[in-house]
C-alpha cells in the first residue's frame, strides 16, 4: 500500500505494509536513525516524533495511519549548517550523557514549545514525562529547555581565563553528535546487506532440552539462512569476565539454568527473520526443579548448578580486624537489622545491538560495549582465533552501568558472520535485554553495630548473601568488594564482614554501579543512624565522630596519608543538615496537615577506585604528526560518563597545549592501546593517570627537540607548532623528523597502574590506591496515610580529589542519585513479571527533586593528576539517606526494598503499634 505524508518538510511516498511501525519505516526505509527504539511499547519515549503538532511514540503508530500527516523527527529540528538554539542549550548544559534519549527529549521539547513558548518548570517536566533517561537524572535536560525558553537557570560558561583546562566545564567533545541525533549507536549503522540474527531462549528457570529437526525447520521457514547451536562454536563454548571463574556457555548444550538463556541462533533476511515467531522453534523441554532463592540453593540436598561449587556457593569474601566479641562486650549501645534488596535492572535505554563482519581471516564487531579489549579476548577464545584476529570497534553506547561489560550479543554475531562470511547484525528486544543480561545482585544482609557510651564505634559484624544467579559474571568481584566496604568510611577497631555469592536458577547478577556496595550501604548507613539515635547523638555528628581521617587505618589495615575526604564532605553538609532538620521539625509540629510528615536523612559512602587488589593498568598513546597535530589514542569507552572529554582535558594540560590542538582517536582495539574497562570508577583515575604521564612525556620530547625551557608554552597555528618562551615565539620545524610506524614524528605511550596489594586470609592489605567519598542529604515528605514518598530536595557532597570537569561531575551526581531513588523507592526486577519498562519502573522526570551539588577537592598525591573516580560513588548514599529520612519522618524502618507505598505504609503501622 502507498502512504503519502510530509516528513521534515518534504513530501514522502512509502510503499509498505501499512501496519508496519513508523519507527521501523523511519529507521529502515528512510534511513533516519535519530528516532531510537528502546522498547517498542510506548514506555520509553525514545521514538518520539511530532505528528501534526503533537508528540507521539512512533513505535505505536502504523505507517498507514499517517497518510496525509506532517511528521517531524529529530533530524527535522535543525538544518545541517547550524545547530538550533535548543540543541545548543543541550550542548552547553551537558544535558546529554550517553545521548540515546536525547532525540526523544528534543522532539518532546520542540512539541511543547510549539504550543507554549514560555513553559513553567512543571510544564517542562510534564512534557518530557514520557521520555525515560537513565543517565542524567533529567536536571540538565529540564534546565536546558527552560534556558532556551527564556527562564535562565544556572549555566556553565567557561569563565576561568587560565590557560589550563583542568577544572573547567568544557562542553563534551563528542557532544555535538549527541544533540543532533546523528550519533551512531549499536543499532544505527548496519551494512545494507547485513543479515539479522535472533536468539532462541529458554522460557524456564531450569530445564534440559533437545533440539529437533533443524533441516525441516529451515525448509518450513525459507527466510532462514542458517541455525547455529553449541556444536557450531569453533573454540571454547565458555566465557566469563573473570577467567578463573568462567562458566557460562555462549549457547547452552543440553541444560539451561536461567530464564532467557540462549540455546540457538537463527540467522536470516531482515524482513522475514524479524517476524519469525521463535516460539515455534523445534525444541523439546524437560523442565527441572528450579532453585530460585538463596535459601533453596543452600538447603541440604539442593541440586547444584555447577558440580564443583559446593552448596551452590560461587565464592566468599572475608575481612576481619581486632576482636569482634570483645568489641561488642565493650559496646554500650547496639543496633542491628536484616535487610533484603531485589534484582535491579540496568534499564539503559539502548537495548544491546551491533553487527559483525568478516574480513578474510579476521572478525570485526561493531556495537555497544563497555569493555572492548575484554570482549576481544573472549571472542577470540570462543572463535578459536588469536586475539589479533578479532577487532572490536565500539559504537556509541546508550548506557551501560555495568551490564555492557559482559559479553551478550557479541559472540552470536561473530559466530554467524564468521560462518556465513556475510555481515550479520542483531537487535535485542527490550524483553530479551531484560531477561538475558546481568542484574544487580539481590541481597540478604544481617548487620550489627555497637558503640561505646561516647558514641565511638566499637564493633561491627556483617553477613551478606548475594544472589549471583546462574553463572559467575562479576559475582566474585561483588563478594570481594562488599566486606572491604561494609565498614563505610569509618574507623572500626573490631570488625568482621563476610559475603557469599550464591548460585540460583535466576538471571545472572553482575556489575551494576557499585558492585554490591549500594546494597551494603543501605544496611550500614540506616543501622548507623539508628545507633546514633540510640546513643542520643545527632546522626551527622555521630558520623563525624567516627569517620576516617588521614593516617587512620581502614578495616583492611590500609592507611592513607592524604586524600581522606569524608570529614570535609560531612562538614560541608552540616549547615544544610541543621537547617533541614529545623524546617522539617517545625513543619511536623504544625498539625493542620495531619497527612504529610517531613523527613531528613543523611548517608555517607566510600568507594575504592579501580579493581580490588589487582593490577588494572591503562595505556595511553599520544603522537605528534609532521603537521603538528597531536593525536590522542584513547581506548576508554565513553558510555556517557564523559571520558572522551575528561581524558583530553588531562592530556592537554599535561602537554601544555590547548584542547583544540588535540585530535581524539576513540576506542578501537586495533588502533588504541588497552585502557581497560569502563567500570570500577577507574577511567578518570587510571586512564586519566596514563594520559597525564603520556602528555608529560610527549611534552618533554618536544621541549628537548626544540631545546626549550621547562615553562614553555606549545601553540599550534595552522599546521605549524610554535614554542612560546616568555615573549619569544619560535616555530618548531618537524619536517626533518622521520615518522614512526604509527605515522608520528614524536610519540609517547605510557601506562598507569595504581599501586595495590593482595588481601591476606583476614582480608588485610591495600585493595585500592584511592577511595572517593561522599555524603547525601535527603529531604522528603511522607504521606502517612498512603505511605507515598515525595522527595523534595537532595544535597550531595562528593570528594573527587581534583574536579577535572565540574559540569560532568554534576551530571554524574544527578544521574547517580536518580538511580539511587529508583533503588530505594520503585525498582524490582522479577523474572517473567517485569520484563518490560511498563512494569519495571524507573524514575521519570517527575520523580527527581532539585539536586544541589557540593564538589570537594581533598588533595591527594597518589595519581599523577590528583583526580579520583566518581561514577559509582554517586548512587551509593542516596537509598540509605532516603530510608533514614523516612524513619525521621515517621519512625518507620523499611528494610525490604523497594520502599513502595504499601511497604512504607505497613512499616508506619508497625512503628505506631510498637510505640503504643
Amino acid at each position, binding site marked *: *500500500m502507498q502512504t503519502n505524508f510530509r516528513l521534515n518538510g518534504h513530501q514522502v511516498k512509502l510503499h509498505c*505494509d*501499512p*501496519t508496519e*511501525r513508523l519507527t521501523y519505516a523511519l529507521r529502515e526505509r528512510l534511513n533516519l536513525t535519530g528516532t531510537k527504539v528502546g522498547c*517498542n*511499547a*510506548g*514506555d520509553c*519515549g525514545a521514538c*518520539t516524533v511530532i*505528528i501534526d503538532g*503533537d*508528540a*507521539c*511514540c512512533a*513505535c*505505536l*503508530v*502504523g505507517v*498507514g*495511519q499517517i*497518510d496525509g500527516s506532517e511528521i517531524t523527527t529529530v533530524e527535522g529540528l535543525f538544518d545541517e549548517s547550524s545547530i538550533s538554539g535548543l540543541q545548543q542549550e543541550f550542548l552547553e548544559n551537558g544535558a546529554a550523557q550517553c545521548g540515546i534519549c536525547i532525540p526523544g527529549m528534543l522532539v*518532546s521539547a520542540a*512539541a511543547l514549545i510549539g504550543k507554549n513558548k514560555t513553559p513553567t518548570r512543571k510544564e517542562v517536566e*510534564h*512534557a518530557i*514525562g*514520557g*521520555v525515560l533517561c537513565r543517565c542524567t537524572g533529567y536536571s540538565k535536560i529540564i534546565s536546558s529547555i527552560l534556558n532556551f525558553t527564556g527562564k535562565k537557570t544556572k549555566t556553565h560558561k567557561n569563565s576561568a581565563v587560565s590557560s589550563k583546562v583542568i577544572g573547567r566545564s568544557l562542553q563534551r567533545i563528542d557532544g555535538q553528535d549527541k544533540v543532533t541525533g546523528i550519533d551512531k549507536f549499536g543499532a544505527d549503522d548496519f551494512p545494507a546487506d547485513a543479515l539479522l540474527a535472533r536468539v532462541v531462549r529458554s522460557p524456564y528457570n531450569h530445564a534440559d532440552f533437545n533440539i529437533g529437526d533443524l533441516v525441516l525447520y529451515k525448509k518450513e521457514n525459507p527466510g532462514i539462512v542458517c541455525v547455529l547451536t553449541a556444536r557450531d562454536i569453533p573454540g571454547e563454548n565458555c566465557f566469563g569476565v573473570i577467567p578463573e571463574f568462567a562458566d557460562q556457555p555462549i549457547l547452552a548444550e543440553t541444560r539451561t539454568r536461567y530464564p532467557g538463556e540462549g540455546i540457538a541462533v537463527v540467522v536470516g533476511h531482515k524482513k522475514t527473520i*524479524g*517476524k*519469525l*515467531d*521463535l*516460539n515455534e522453534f523445534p525444541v523439546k523441554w524437560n523442565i527441572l526443579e528450579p532453585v530460585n532463592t538463596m535459601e533453596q540453593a543452600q538447603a541440604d540436598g539442593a541440586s547444584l548448578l555447577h558440580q564443583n561449587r559446593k552448596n551452590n556457593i560461587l565464592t566468599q569474601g572475608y575481612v576481619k580486624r581486632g576482636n569482634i566479641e570483645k568489641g561488642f562486650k565493650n559496646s554500650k549501645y547496639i543496633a542491628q537489622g536484616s535487610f533484603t534488596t531485589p534484582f535491579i535492572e540496568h534499564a539503559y535505554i539502548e537495548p544491546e545491538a551491533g553487527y559483525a563482519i568478516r574480513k578474510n581471516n579476521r572478525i570485526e564487531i561493531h556495537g555497544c560495549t563497555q569493555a572492548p579489549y575484554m570482549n576481544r579476548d573472549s571472542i577470540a577464545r570462543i572463535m578459536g582465533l588469536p586475539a589479533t584476529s578479532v577487532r572490536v570497534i565500539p559504537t556509541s553506547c546508550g548506557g551501560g552501568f555495568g551490564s555492557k561489560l559482559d559479553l551478550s550479543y557479541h559472540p552470536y554475531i561473530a559466530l554467524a558472520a564468521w560462518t556465513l562470511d556475510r555481515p550479520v547484525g542483531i537487535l535485542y528486544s527490550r524483553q530479551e535485554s531484560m531477561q538475558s543480561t546481568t542484574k544487580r545482585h539481590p541481597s540478604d544482609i544481617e548487620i550489627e553495630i555497637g558503640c561505646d557510651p561516647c558514641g565511638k564505634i566499637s564493633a561491627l559484624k556483617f553477613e551478606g548473601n548475594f544472589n549471583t544467579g546462574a553463572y559467575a559474571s562479576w559475582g566474585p568481584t561483588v563478594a570481594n568488594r562488599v566486606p572491604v566496604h561494609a565498614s563505610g568510611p569509618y574507623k572500626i577497631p573490631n570488625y568482621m564482614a563476610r559475603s557469599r555469592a550464591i548460585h540460583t536458577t535466576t538471571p545472572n547478577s553482575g556489575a551494576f554501579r557499585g558492585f554490591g556496595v549500594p546494597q551494603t550501604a543501605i544496611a550500614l548507613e540506616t543501622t548507623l543512624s539508628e545507633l546514633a539515635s540510640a546513643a542520643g547523638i545527632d546522626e551527622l555528628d555521630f558520623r563525624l565522630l567516627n569517620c576516617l581521617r588521614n593516617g587512620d587505618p581502614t578495616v583492611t589495615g590500609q592507611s592513607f596519608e592524604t586524600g581522606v575526604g569524608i570529614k570535609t564532605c560531612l562538614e560541608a553538609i552540616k549547615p544544610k543538615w541543621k537547617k533541614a532538620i529545623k524546617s522539617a521539625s517545625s513543619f511536623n509540629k504544625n498539625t493542620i496537615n495531619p497527612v504529610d510528615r517531613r523527613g531528613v536523612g543523611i548517608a555517607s559512602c566510600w568507594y575504592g577506585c579501580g579493581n580490588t587488589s589487582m593490577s588494572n593498568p591503562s595505556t595511553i598513546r599520544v603522537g605528534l604528526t609532521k603537521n603538528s597535530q597531536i593525536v590522542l589514542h584513547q581506548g576508554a569507552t565513553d558510555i556517557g560518563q564523559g571520558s572522551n572529554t575528561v581524558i583530553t582535558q588531562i592530556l592537554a594540560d599535561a602537554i601544555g597545549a590547548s584542547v583544540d590542538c588535540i585530535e581524539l582517536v576513540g576506542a578501537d582495539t586495533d588502533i588504541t592501546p588497552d585502557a581497560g574497562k569502563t567500570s570500577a570508577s577507574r577511567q578518570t583515575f587510571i586512564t586519566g593517570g596514563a594520559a597525564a604521564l603520556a602528555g608529560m612525556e610527549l611534552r618533554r620530547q618536544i621541549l628537548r627537540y626544540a631545546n626549550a625551557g621547562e615553562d614553555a608554552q606549545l601553540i599550534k597555528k595552522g599546521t605549524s607548532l610554535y614554542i612560546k618562551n616568555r615573549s619569544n615565539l619560535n616555530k618548531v620545524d618537524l619536517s626533518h623528523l622521520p615518522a614512526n610506524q604509527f605515522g608520528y614524528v614524536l610519540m609517547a605511550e605510557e601506562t598507569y597502574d595504581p599501586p595495590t596489594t593482595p588481601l591476606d586470609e583476614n582480608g588485610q592489605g591495600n585493595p585500592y590506591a584511592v577511595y572517593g567519598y561522599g555524603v547525601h542529604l535527603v529531604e522528603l515528605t511522607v504521606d502517612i*496515610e*498512603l505511605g*507515598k514518598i515525595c522527595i523534595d530536595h537532595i544535597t550531595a557532597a562528593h570528594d573527587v580529589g581534583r574536579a577535572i570537569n565540574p559540569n560532568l561531575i554534576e551530571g554524574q551526581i544527578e544521574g547517580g542519585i536518580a538511580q539511587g531513588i529508583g533503588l530505594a*523507592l*520503585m525498582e*524490582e526486577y*522479577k523474572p517473567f*513479571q*517485569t520484563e518490560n519498562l*511498563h*512494569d519495571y*519502573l524507573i*524514575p*521519570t*522526570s*517527575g*520523580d527527581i527533586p532539585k539536586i544541589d551539588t557540593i564538589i570537594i577537592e581533598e588533595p591527594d598525591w597518589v595519581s599523577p593528576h590528583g583526580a579520583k573516580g566518581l561514577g559509582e560513588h554517586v548512587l551509593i548514599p542516596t537509598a540509605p539517606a532516603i530510608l533514614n529520612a523516612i524513619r525521621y519522618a515517621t519512625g518507620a524502618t523499611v528494610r525490604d526494598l523497594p520502599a*513502595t*507505598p*504499601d511497604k512504607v*505504609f*505497613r512499616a508506619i503501622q508497625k512503628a505506631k503499634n510498637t510505640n503504643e
Partner: protein
Amino acid sequence: MYARPKNIEEALSTLASDNWKVLAGGTDLFPNLKEGGVNFNILDISALADLRGIKETQAEWIIGALTTWADLEKTPLPRSFNALLQAGKEVGSIQIQNRGTIAGNLCNASPAADGVPPLLILEAKLDLVSTHGTRTIPLSKFIKGNRKTSRRMDEIVKCIRVPKKKCFGNSAFSKLGAREYMVISIVMTAARLEICQQNRIRESAIAIGACSETAQRMPSVEAAIKGKSIEEALGTISSEHVASLDPLSDIRAPREYRFYAAQQLIKRTLINCQKIEDNYAN
C-alpha cells in the same frame, strides 16, 4: 488485510465481512502485539474524522469514539467532567494522551483503565454500531470482566453518551501509582458530588478502579454519605463500605493494601470535589 475507511458505512460493511481487529490510537494494540507482528486483519478507524471530538445536544454530551485524552481539554465541559479530565492528564504520558482514545480505553477493558471510573460516575452509555443498526449500552454493562466487553466482532463503538441529568455537581479523580508519569494505577477513584445549600451531600456517585476485575460504582458508600456534610462523610467511610471490592495481589501492591488505599482515596477524592466547589464559590 488492512483497511482504512474514510466513512463509517464503509467501515461497518468491512467489519461485517470478516474477522477484523479495530485499530484506533494503537496505544494498547501495538504494545500487545505478539512476536511475529500483525497476523490478523486490521480495520484502522483513525480516518473516520466524524468520530473525533465532543458535541453537545439538549440532553447529552457526546464524546466521539476517536476523541483522544488530549482532545478533552479542547472543549469546555461542565465541572462534573473534571474527573475525566484529570484522569486524562494522568494517562501514561503526553505521547500516549495524544494518540490514545477514550473509547479505546473502554474497549480494551483493563481493570486499571483510568477512563472507566470517571465515566461510571457520569452514568455514561456507549453506542455500538454495526450494519444491523445501533445498540446503546450503559458502560456498567459494557465492560464484563478483565479485557471482556459485550461488543460483538462486527460492531464499532461510535460514541460515548453522557446524560446531562447526571452532569450536576463537581467531580474529581485520584490515582495512586508508584511513580509520577507513565504508571498504571494501584488504585484509582472518581467521585461526583452534588452539594446542597446547607453544605450537605444531596447526591453522590463514586467509583473505584484497579480493585476488582472491572471498575465498580460504590453504592454502599454513596448511601452512607447521603445527606451528610463532607466532614461527616469522611468520618463515616469504613472498611465495610469497600468490602464489595476484590482486589488482587500483584507486582504493584498486595490485596490488603489496596483495600486500605481505596478507602483513603475515596476520602481524598471527596475532599477534592469540595475544593473545586470552594474554588468556584469564591
